């Protein structure tokens, strides 16, 4: 133990804790070269974002009857009869620059309307039953190169949980730090305690990257912002960008943005959230610099919301939602998939937008074309029983 006392954090990293620190120990990996510098960001919009408020199909003859009060009159026209909510001018500019695209009428295989079950299934990649590990974790177990991932935020989402350990998590410190000596002693005490050892080891690693962020004024915002408030969207997306843009940074980042369950007065709530998300995407792009050009971001909710406005100027849990794609790696400037229409008979259960694209197809298309996963691994281990959900082509 005496020798450990003399170690500082950096040497501790290089010394022995190879398990989780792969992602940040520069000498241990050269995966970035293997991915050609390409990056993938998965943003989970928890609570079910109302896709038809984000991207109304303004030329659909039935949209006014269903939800006139929820269609933004100032929405920015894109193409194909779609328009983008006016709170998102930066995303609209990305679309015009062919750096953003959308997939409306999208859903996973799940057809019930429980947030918690749907999020679990979205993250574990299953059809009916929820597994203990997430699809991104299983994908990393079959990665074409030594890829690593970072999860932004204080809790570990299901999508990254599982046997692969080259995933770390990070959110900014707001309390004084313990000394390196105390850390070393705890490392020693945690021998034989898998949970604590793994997490502390990874935390030490993530802190090295975070050290470079402490001067960022936005960090103070995060410390002061409430849990799940939209002001955190910017900080979290920016942090993801910083991790990915490092010379030997991870290939993949996961960000969870809460607060999209808009049962009542949703125009006000979404105005704030879209504004924050738009600012977050802009800030992400600026932070990543050149790396943005090789980045693909997918933002997805567990399901969509009802086609019709409810009695409280909100919407209830639905089925078909809308996915946002962004980044220089995306073949942007287009709306993917088929629009099923809003006639009562075309709605799912005469209630929700009918899904025409399987969310797993988008994930598979991105994993295959952006980061080079093999199709049969995607069909089997990563997304079990998903042969029918063929990888979406042409996204990248």
């Amino acid at each position, binding site marked *: 133990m005496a020798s450990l006392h003399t170690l500082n954090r950096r040497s501790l990293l290089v010394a022995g804790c190879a398990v*989780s620190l792969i992602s940040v120990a520069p000498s241990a990996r050269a995966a970035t070269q293997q991915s050609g510098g390409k990056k993938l960001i998965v943003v989970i919009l*928890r*609570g079910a974002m109302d896709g038809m408020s984000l991207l109304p199909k303004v030329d659909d003859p039935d949209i006014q009857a269903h939800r006139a009060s929820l269609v933004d009159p100032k929405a920015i026209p894109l193409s194909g009869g779609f328009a983008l909510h006016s709170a998102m001018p930066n995303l609209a500019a990305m679309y015009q620059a062919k750096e953003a695209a959308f997939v409306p009428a999208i859903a996973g295989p799940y057809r*019930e*309307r*429980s*947030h*918690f*079950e749907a999020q679990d299934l979205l993250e574990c990649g299953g059809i009916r039953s929820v597994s203990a590990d997430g699809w991104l974790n299983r994908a990393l177990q079959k990665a074409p190169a030594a890829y690593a991932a970072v*999860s932004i*935020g*204080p*809790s*570990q989402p299901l999508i990254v*949980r599982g046997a692969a350990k080259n995933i*770390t*998590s*990070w*959110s900014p*410190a*707001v*309390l*004084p*730090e*313990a*000394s390196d*000596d*105390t*850390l070393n*002693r*705890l490392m*020693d*005490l*945690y021998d034989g305690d898998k*949970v*604590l050892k*793994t*997490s*502390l*080891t*990874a*935390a*030490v*690693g*993530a*802190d090295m990257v975070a050290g470079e962020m402490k001067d960022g004024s936005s960090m103070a915002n995060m*410390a002061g912002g*409430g*849990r*799940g408030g939209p002001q955190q969207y910017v900080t979290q997306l920016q942090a993801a960008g910083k991790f990915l843009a490092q010379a030997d940074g991870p290939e993949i980042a996961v960000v969870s943005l*809460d607060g999209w*369950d808009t*049962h*009542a007065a949703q125009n006000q709530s979404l105005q704030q959230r879209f504004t924050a998300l738009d600012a977050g995407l802009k800030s992400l792009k600026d932070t990543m610099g050149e790396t943005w050009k090789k980045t693909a971001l997918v933002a997805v909710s567990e399901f969509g919301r009802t086609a019709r406005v*409810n*009695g*409280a100027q*909100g919407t*209830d849990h639905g089925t078909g939602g809308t996915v946002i794609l962004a980044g220089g790696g995306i073949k942007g400037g287009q709306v993917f998939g088929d629009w099923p229409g809003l006639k009562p008979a075309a709605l799912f*259960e005469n209630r929700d937008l009918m899904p025409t694209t399987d969310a797993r197809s988008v994930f598979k298309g991105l994993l295959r074309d952006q980061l080079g996963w093999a199709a049969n691994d995607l069909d089997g281990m990563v997304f079990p029983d998903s042969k029918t959900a063929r990888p979406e082509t042409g996204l990248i």
Partner: protein
Amino acid sequence: MSLQGAIAATRFGMGAKPGEIEAASSDPRGWLKAQIAPNAALVPADGLKDVQTAIRDQQEAYRGLFGPNGQALKPKEARQEAKEAKADAKEAKSDGDPKPQGDGAALLQARQMAQREIREGLLKEVDAKSKHAVETAAPFAERWARFWSNHFTVAARNMQLIPMVGPFEREAIRPHVFGNFATLLGASTFHPCMLTYLDAAKSFGPSTEAAQKRKVGLNENLAREILELHTMGVGSGYTQADIIEFAKALTGWTVGGPQTARMMFAGGQGQGAGLRPGFRRQERVSFQGGAAQMNAMIGATVFVEPLHEPGARTVVGKSYGGPAKTQAAMILDDLARSKATAHHIATKLVRHFVSDTPPPAAVAKIEAVFLRTGGNLADLARAVIDLDEAWGETQQKFKTPDELLVSAGRATGQEVAYGANQRGVYQALAQQPFNAPSPAGWPDDTASWSGADAIKKRLEWANAVSRRMVRGESPSDFLDRALGPVASARTRQAVARAETAEQGFTIALMSPEFQRR
């Protein structure tokens, strides 16, 4: 000190206070069962408001801000002025000008003060709850109450809800946790806070005259979450149609006050039954009233028949006719006694007291007691204490941040879970009281709380607490009274060999045994 005594205090209780392990050691199960009593989980309410007062005060605080010179502005004008004042202030700031003065500025200031007062009310609630948890001599009752409070989650996610969440736990949850489950379910469902949190207060019978006139309608949120989270559990057999029917049965139940008066009298003469929060069903009073009476009922749960969807409802295969105001309660009573509910509750209890992966045999035992006693929660608590599976030597449960803070407060006697720095700490550890991220409540498993970042934050917190610990006590003595025989030889050695007392306390607080229960 016996190992079983230490398990009683740390796993079933809220963490050992000095001397508690000794007190529990001779008869650990008896020590726990002695804490089961009707009022055992009540929090002293000194200086705290009941929900009606809290809501009334809030509305008055907002009303009061309209006139800096005493003039009464209509809410719309006031909002506009406040908005302009905010813009002025922003502009002045960016130009480096002094803060603007005048009506708008005073208004903005008044508004901010009102909001601060409301937020401070919540801090008082958190303080009272945390202080109680740290000091109580009935820590099992406290854990039991917190389990139910998390089961019936509400969250302070906006200014309207902030004043209600504390009263909700004190009025709807704590008085009923050793009573009958059906009573607890009713108290939770009909409390103004739950009606507001899950949008039932703004859900109206779609075919009522009031709803048609005002172009409002049904909101199914509360009905859905009662079925999915509070009673039967997801995938247990109810359908989307059941949710809608149940939601219709719940229409008419809302929160009294001017808004409800306006809704009511858009749809004809008001008639309804009013009841006080913390009610028992037989106390429901019928009244015939007008707008003035409804205004006066601000903050109370009311049943407003003109807003209720007329007709019989069919939920989970059973038809409910009868008087409109009893419909929802009848459905709740049946849900409370259903087999699916017994299984759902038993699984959650076993997860909480035994393991993240509940052993089916233990679940079956608790489920049987639930069904046999008709959901008697005191019997259920005794059955949980009598589960041999819950007394294993291996600690299977990872403490949530809240459990960590309270147990540290009990062990150290320090203000670690309440007081001035409480907010920042809870926030850093990602579990702000009354702020669960969704109606499912806080997760109750290791994986959710043991990520890299969470451990880093716990270490930073432990480090900060250690700096404030009383000097003079040895870290080894501290470890012994906090964990007793639960502490391993390895941990004892690491604490004893620390370079400084401060480091020893940090290691004790961060030890695998203190991080679990």
